[in-house]
């Protein structure tokens, strides 16, 4: 197990270097001169040259890339913002916890609401509970979360005044962003739980358990759930990376000063060091969450665990 985690972590580093190269290259190819944007059309050629020289923009692509990778991965230097002239890392460190908090809360809500919904649907297959849950799930996937966010601001913040419409000043500020951010995930989890529950519900071991006279509650909790939840955990693996990184629009709507809004401000201001670093950070989180999910998956599924602990036994 330890070796598995180690290998995955090692591989993750390569992936992140790849991500950094990819993002750097995409942003490098953006047409237009960055200095024009910051210094204005009227800036003299000398001023522009000085600006480009200061940030190393006058160097060839490979030199810039090398420089970027070297300072990012070996020195932990995320670069300096063109606009604010401050190190990006300082701002990121303040913002990361907020984005993480939002993302992790969404994951928790996804699981806490989605899984019971799916279970209820499966246990009452083809009855009204099933229909209700699946209609809810369909609505949740279909309604765009940023529109829901705006409507929630309209109703709960402005008309009813229950929650602040933006910012993170109060604890209640987080309620609406978390609801908006977790809708799609709730739906996905409910659907996945339902279909994997339905797969085990008619399994022979369930019939056996019932035939032995095991209490129905125990059948559901001890016999069905652990088997049904394995694919749900895999599904959770796709959800979190979306939750951590996909809340960019939600962050903007509620003006949560997280990594997402930072990235968007970088985009608006042509401040590419900010964009690059934010994307790399978000990719780190989503990779870490995926890894975490894979580890949990390996722990709860004995078949996977056997593959890694008993090396090359069967294969």
């Amino acid at each position: 197990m330890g070796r598995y985690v180690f290998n995955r972590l090692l591989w993750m580093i390569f992936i992140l270097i790849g991500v950094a190269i990819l993002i750097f290259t995409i942003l490098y190819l953006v047409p237009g001169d960055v200095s024009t944007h910051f210094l204005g059309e009227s800036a003299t050629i000398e001023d522009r040259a000085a600006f480009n020289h200061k940030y190393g923009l006058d160097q060839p692509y490979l030199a810039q890339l090398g420089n970027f990778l070297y300072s990012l991965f070996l020195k932990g230097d995320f670069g300096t913002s063109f606009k604010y002239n401050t190190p990006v890392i300082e701002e990121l460190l303040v913002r990361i916890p907020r984005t993480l908090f939002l993302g992790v809360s969404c994951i928790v809500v996804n699981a806490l609401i989605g899984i019971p919904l799916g279970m209820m649907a499966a246990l009452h297959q083809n009855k009204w509970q099933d229909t209700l849950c699946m209609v809810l799930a369909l609505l949740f996937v279909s309604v765009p979360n940023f529109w829901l966010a705006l409507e929630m601001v309209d109703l709960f913040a402005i008309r009813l005044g229950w929650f602040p419409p933006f910012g993170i000043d109060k604890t209640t500020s987080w309620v609406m962003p978390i609801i908006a951010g977790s809708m799609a995930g709730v739906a996905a989890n409910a659907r996945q739980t339902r279909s994997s529950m339905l797969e085990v519900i008619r399994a022979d071991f369930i019939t056996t358990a019932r035939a032995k006279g095991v209490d129905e509650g125990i059948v559901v909790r001890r016999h069905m759930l652990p088997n049904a939840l394995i694919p749900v955990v895999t599904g959770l693996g796709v959800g979190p990376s979306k939750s951590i990184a996909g809340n960019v629009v939600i962050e903007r709507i509620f003006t949560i000063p997280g990594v997402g809004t930072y990235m968007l401000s970088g985009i608006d201001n042509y401040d590419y060091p900010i964009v690059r670093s934010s994307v790399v950070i978000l990719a780190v989180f989503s990779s870490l969450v995926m890894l975490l999910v894979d580890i949990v998956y390996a722990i709860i599924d004995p078949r996977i665990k056997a593959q890694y602990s008993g090396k090359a036994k069967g294969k």
Partner: protein
Amino acid sequence: MEHNNQTVKRKSQFAQVIERLLTNKGAVVGVSILLLIVIISLVGPLFCPYGYNEMILTDKFMAPCAKHLLGTDAYGRDIFTRLIYGARYSLLLGITGALAGMAVGIVLGLIDGYLGGMFDTVFMRFLDIWAAIPGQLLSIIIATALGPGFVNTIIALSIGEVPLVIRLLRGQILSVRKEDYLEAAHSINASPGRIMFKHILPNVISPVIVNTTMNIGAIITSAAALSYLGLGIKPPNPEWGAMLAAGKSYVGVYNWLVLYPGLCIAIVVLCVNLFGDGLRDAIDPKMKK
């Protein structure tokens, strides 16, 4: 099975899917509403008394009324008219975005599955990197790099889809690789292109089609989100997401500016999803139980 039955059965495969699809109430409702929306978006402009960009400055911020069915925006433009024109953007972006992603994914996936070996190993590692950037984030970055515009938005939207299609296809191809009909095709010296597109593709395509259909809804939402952020279709074009962005400052005051465009997105996405779910059940009836 008797020989003469076989041609009959093969003919009806597609018909069977359609037949099953037609028995699915949700899918039928979804498709009907979508068709209605398509017709309205094509024919509607003929009947609209206003242009989508026609500013009537005396009618600013009018609430929904007889003159302006769904009200007007900050420039006195008729929301209803703009929504009708906007339907084209959402539907076209969603469908072409999904198809473009599918097409690129199919070509790359087939090449990868056909070549296998070293190419596959390297390509899969590259794909890991590609997929490590969450789709929406990648779309935002690509849209930033390419700038706003219709074609650019399609590219940005489809790029996140590609790794998924490739993975799906690769798994399918691996499962048919050793099939006799491929060996037969090789033995009669069929060209790689012919083998890939004529022999492998028809046998592996259905999960990809299902997946693509089910993704159209998500792509429409992402398109609206990109436009909302100002990276997709730019105002004054009446894209629904862009309309949301324009109306967001008036939330709580002139709420029709946000309510109706969002409702339109939700309805279209809902219908597409209903159709997608129906299609999945029709193509793969096992999954329904």
